[in-house]
């Protein structure tokens, strides 16, 4: 992770140029060159919060990736129903939503599906959407931000106006209206809509609205770098636009981009859950945090445990991401203190 090509090579040169000492006895003081990336990594390693939240995130990734394996070990699938373990009103028998040795987090009231395995698969859906959306919006934001910041003039004005426009559209209402319209455009009113399509639509909506913050951030950074000597040098030696944008400017602004990326992911986790909560994202048979919470509100009085597990799960995921993002910011930019 080299933050700045310039200073990294400078630091390297320093290390090799360290004089061996002209035959002088005694310990030779050696310069250890470290790139800003290495420095940031060292700071991150020392930060206990970062390590704990980072480890938590790794566990979540592993769990999400290994969901089918966990299903095999656990022995219960996300769509299996255990109606015989519900009482006459559809509420799970036993304590705290039917927690037992077979069902670690209890059962869903109504259909009697196992909550633990549904949460595991819900995590998978959530993280997939959040990461895809964060990557796409960051890429778009970087491209538009660098263009606006470096070229300035009318390009800047047009991109700036589009940013304002995207910010003025009420996101949730717009998403609410667009999703069914898009779905109807591709599928009939009675067709089964595959999950892959729903996921794609959600990601596309996040992409259409989410690039603005990254674009603003990148633009601001680029504007302050634009007049620096190394950019001028590149321009003077006849470098093309693409080279200046991606080889000269981009390596110098990775740090804020990385931070905004790590804070964007949890916001898409919650955004996706919110859309599903409102009924326009993922829909029922597919396991998802938002769908589960929405469903659980019906059973609030009789089975509060059903609300508890998905609610806490989404909180822990988002909390870990936020903590890690904060630590990353501290590590990459030592001047900013929380």
């Amino acid at each position, binding site marked *: 992770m080299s933050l700045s090509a310039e200073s990294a090579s400078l630091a390297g040169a320093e290390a090799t140029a360290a004089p061996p000492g002209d035959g002088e006895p005694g310990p030779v003081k050696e310069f250890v060159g470290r790139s800003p990336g290495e420095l940031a990594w060292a700071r991150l390693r020392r930060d206990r919060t970062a390590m704990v939240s980072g480890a938590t995130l790794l566990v979540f990734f592993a769990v999400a990736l290994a969901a089918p394996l966990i299903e095999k070990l656990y022995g219960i699938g996300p769509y299996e129903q255990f109606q015989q373990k519900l009482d006459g009103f559809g509420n799970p028998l036993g304590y705290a939503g039917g927690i037992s040795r077979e069902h670690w987090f209890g059962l869903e009231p109504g259909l009697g599906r196992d909550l633990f395995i549904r949460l595991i698969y819900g995590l998978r859906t959530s993280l997939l959407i959040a990461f895809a959306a964060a990557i796409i919006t960051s890429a778009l934001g970087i491209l538009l931000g660098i263009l606006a910041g470096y070229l300035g003039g009318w390009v800047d004005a047009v991109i700036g106006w589009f940013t304002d426009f995207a910010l003025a559209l009420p996101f949730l209402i717009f998403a*609410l209206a667009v999703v069914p319209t898009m779905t109807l455009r591709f599928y009939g009113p009675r067709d089964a809509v595959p999950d892959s399509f729903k996921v794609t639509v959600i990601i596309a909506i996040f992409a259409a609205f989410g690039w603005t913050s990254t674009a603003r951030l990148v633009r601001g950074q680029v504007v302050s770098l634009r007049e620096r000597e190394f950019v001028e040098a590149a321009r003077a030696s006849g470098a093309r636009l693409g080279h200046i944008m991606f080889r000269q400017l981009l390596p110098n602004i990775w740090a804020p981009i990385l931070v905004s990326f790590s804070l964007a992911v949890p916001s898409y986790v919650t955004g996706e859950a919110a859309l599903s909560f409102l009924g326009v994202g993922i829909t029922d048979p597919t396991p998802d945090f938002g769908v589960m919470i929405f469903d659980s509100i019906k059973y609030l009085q009789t089975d509060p445990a059903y609300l508890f597990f998905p609610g806490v799960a989404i909180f822990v995921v988002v909390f870990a991401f936020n903590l890690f993002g904060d630590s990353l910011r501290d590590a990459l930019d030592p001047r900013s203190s929380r």
Partner: protein
Amino acid sequence: MVRFLIKRLLAGVLTLTAVSVVSFLMFFALPRDPVSAMCPKNCNEERLERVREELGLRDPKHEQYLNYVKGIFVGRDLGSAQGGHCDAPCLGYSYVNSESVLDIFSRVLPVTLSIVIPAAIIWLLLGVGLGMVSALRKGTLLDRMAVSFSLTGASLQLYFVGAVLQLVFVYQLKILPVPGYTSLFENPLKWAGGLVLAWWALAFLFSAIYTRLSRAQMLETLSEDFIRTARAKGLPRSRVYGRHALRAAATPMVTIAGLDVGSALGGTVITETTFGLQGLGRTAVEAVRLGDLSTIMAMVLVSALFIVVANIVVDLLYALIDPRVKLG
């Protein structure tokens, strides 16, 4: 100042026009037949035809759009089935609810206002207050508690907090009524009782950002020269912190507060859904579910209007609060 205002207003009008064109195309020009959605159950072909005629769906698209805009500014004649002449600002007629969209607005807007305004007051006071206190007491237990409070708030979900609050206060402790809306002028106590959970849920989550931001800003401002000068002049602490420092630290918070309030006024969709309150947001959700296009269109426009106005207000407030800011 005046020039700045005119420039911003023009940009705002441009943005709103673009929003209206995009949403118009999106909802009215897509191949999906809007009429079958607007027409209530058991519509026959004849009736569908009549509705199409009345809505002017046979006209070219740009004419339809111009008619819509004209309706907003000078009013227009809708067919007799849509309540005849529709005065400016005419936002159209909802077939689903059999009333004009403006009537729907006048019914649900007070609900959203009753949720957002008190909640915003709570979250600003709570957030900024906590942030300032923790900046002035940096490193103490209080500071650490405020920081973890804000991190927790920033990671929690409104639908989760809302459901937990309802569970505890309404169903378990039974000290609050089931959330609902009563007019403030009818019965202020009932009004507050039905909304207090929504206020606190919103305030808890929103204040988190302000706590973090005001803490960071205060810490930065406190190390500036003018604070040292003010202290050196012998001004009392309360005046230095409350006036000098807070004023300088407030600018970025004004931006976020303006945007938050602006977008919250456009419909606190999730709050309203969680607490079952019939405000702008929930109306929009239902309009989408029922395919009530005129209502959706109007909702998008009004929400965008709130955001655009909030943006302009923020810029003006900037100049008022921070003497270093020049408008131009």
